[in-house]
């Protein structure tokens, strides 16, 4: 009569203990459910010490991972989204933006900054998935474009960390043109022979993959990230079959020749630093 007993894992934390845990001090791994003290998680670069799951983190954490002593100067921090089309679906775009700003504490889905990483000045643009799925509208496109300009004018290597579902629908063709804009800026950076490293994290899809994320001199992926052009659901519906295991994963892209290397987050700073030292004299 095993169904009367709880055989499989379930709620193991006592209610008493749960109540005693203040928010933000502990993190629970979404994959293996291991609970890690937040301090320890910072040390492990937001990777689960038990199962190596790379937590979905944002610009705040990536800056912490890559900039020396978490010191940096943020660029264009004051840009916020307009509503060029007066877009309304089930709710208005404007209210979506206001809600996201309130909820995430961010102004849009990307932050850009300049600072030192292993002593070398670099510019980082990092997307924030927590803000409308990391989608790219005018602000994301503009911030990334300006960051690339800054890198070109000051001759600093450029890093873009992608984490996004794609272009932002609520700015329609304005969003689409950000793909052309950011790619054009990268063409100018390329002409100056300044290195650009693209870091692809979970997830990187749609218009992001079809623009700056795939244009790195080096394309680095975090392990087991979803990376692709069309979303898995769309492909599944199109071909009418289940997708093969591991399809559109970092490892799949490495196998097919579209990323140069997969790097565990704990080694990310070191690997970027080493790569740059091979090709770049400050």
């Amino acid at each position: 009569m095993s169904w009367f007993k709880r055989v499989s894992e379930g709620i193991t934390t006592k209610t008493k203990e749960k109540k005693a845990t203040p928010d933000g001090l502990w993190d629970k791994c979404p994959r293996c459910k291991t609970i890690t003290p937040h301090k320890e998680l910072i040390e492990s670069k937001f990777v689960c010490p038990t199962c190596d799951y790379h937590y979905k983190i944002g610009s705040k954490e990536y800056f912490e991972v890559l900039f020396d002593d978490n010191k940096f100067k943020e660029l264009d921090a004051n840009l916020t989204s307009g509503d060029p089309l007066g877009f309304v679906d089930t709710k208005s775009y404007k209210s979506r933006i206001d809600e996201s700003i309130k909820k995430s504490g961010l102004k849009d889905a990307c932050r850009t900054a300049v600072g030192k990483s292993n002593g070398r000045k670099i510019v980082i643009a990092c997307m924030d998935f927590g803000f409308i799925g990391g989608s790219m509208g005018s602000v994301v496109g503009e911030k990334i474009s300006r960051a690339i300009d800054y890198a070109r004018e000051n001759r600093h290597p450029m890093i873009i960390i992608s984490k996004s579902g794609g272009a932002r629908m609520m700015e329609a063709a304005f969003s689409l043109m950000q793909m052309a804009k950011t790619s054009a800026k990268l063409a100018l950076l390329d002409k100056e022979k300044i290195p650009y490293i693209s870091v692809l994290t979970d997830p990187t899809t749609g218009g992001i993959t079809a623009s700056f994320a795939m244009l790195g001199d080096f394309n680095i992926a975090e392990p087991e990230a979803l990376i692709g052009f069309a979303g898995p659901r769309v492909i599944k519906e199109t071909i009418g079959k289940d997708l093969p295991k591991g399809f559109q994963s970092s490892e799949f892209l490495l196998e097919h020749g579209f990323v140069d290397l997969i790097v565990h987050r704990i080694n990310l700073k070191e690997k970027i630093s080493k790569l740059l030292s091979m090709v770049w004299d400050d």
Partner: protein
Amino acid sequence: MYFDFEKPIQELDEQLEKAKETHDKGKIDMMDMINSLVKKIDETKKEIYGNLSGWQRVQISRHQDRPYALDYINAMAPDFIEIHGDRNVKDDKAMIGGFGSIDGQAFMFIGQQKGRNTKERQYRNFGMPNPEGYRKALRLMKLAEKFNRPIVTLIDTPGASPGLEAEERGQGEAIAKNLMEMAVLKVPIICIVIGEGASGGALGIGVGDKVLMMENTWYSVISPESCSSILWRTWDYKEKAADALKLTANDMLKNGLIDGIISEPLGGAHTDIEKAVSSVKKEIKKQYKLLKDKTVDDLINERIEKFSNMGVVNEDVAEH
């Protein structure tokens, strides 16, 4: 074939047909009736086509009799020589290209190609290129650059192909590469949306010095159907989505995202293909004239500048 919104025209057409029949039998003189019907049809057409909604334009842009890339190219440049393959994987039938001349000036023509019947549609993969299509397009553009010939791209795609092989061969990378390379290509590029301009699949051959849309086409980040399915979780809001996306030529021009509109014959390009071709040809000649004497630096700088200025952001200086 009539669209729903063409019902009034259909009814008048049928009345006209009957009147003509009666007249031809010779018993009753119907000329007055016929003349007034012809006049009324013309007025009704002007009224209907002068006030088309976004969704109605989307429907016209997909009309099965609408001229496709090769129809335009073969008519404008009868000496067109098609060039095949990406020199890597295969020849993508959804992306065509080659050299041809208009009034003595050679152009590199590139475009997405749709098919007209079931067999052709499958052969052309519904105008949805795979990565090798974008790579073929880039190869041809580089060829044009090498021989200093201007490029004309004709955009007509429901999107880049979504599929296993497309992902395996790097659909995203192929499009991204084109965006970057087209930005700094050393020859004039004229892009014309002749039908559907869906998202990255369209933009992959859409970075140009002059980007134009024909009157009854659409260009956006997503199709109205997919937009509806994502935001409303059903396909039923496609008309609303088409309005919200501001995807018509008029809206795109108003928002500064394209450089001009090519007008179509009343009722759409399919009603008078010869006239549509001649408008496109005239426009290509006109635009090329504006571009041909620019220095390479000016051309590239102005092209990048144009795309750099696209976007609407609020910049609160006070907070800085």
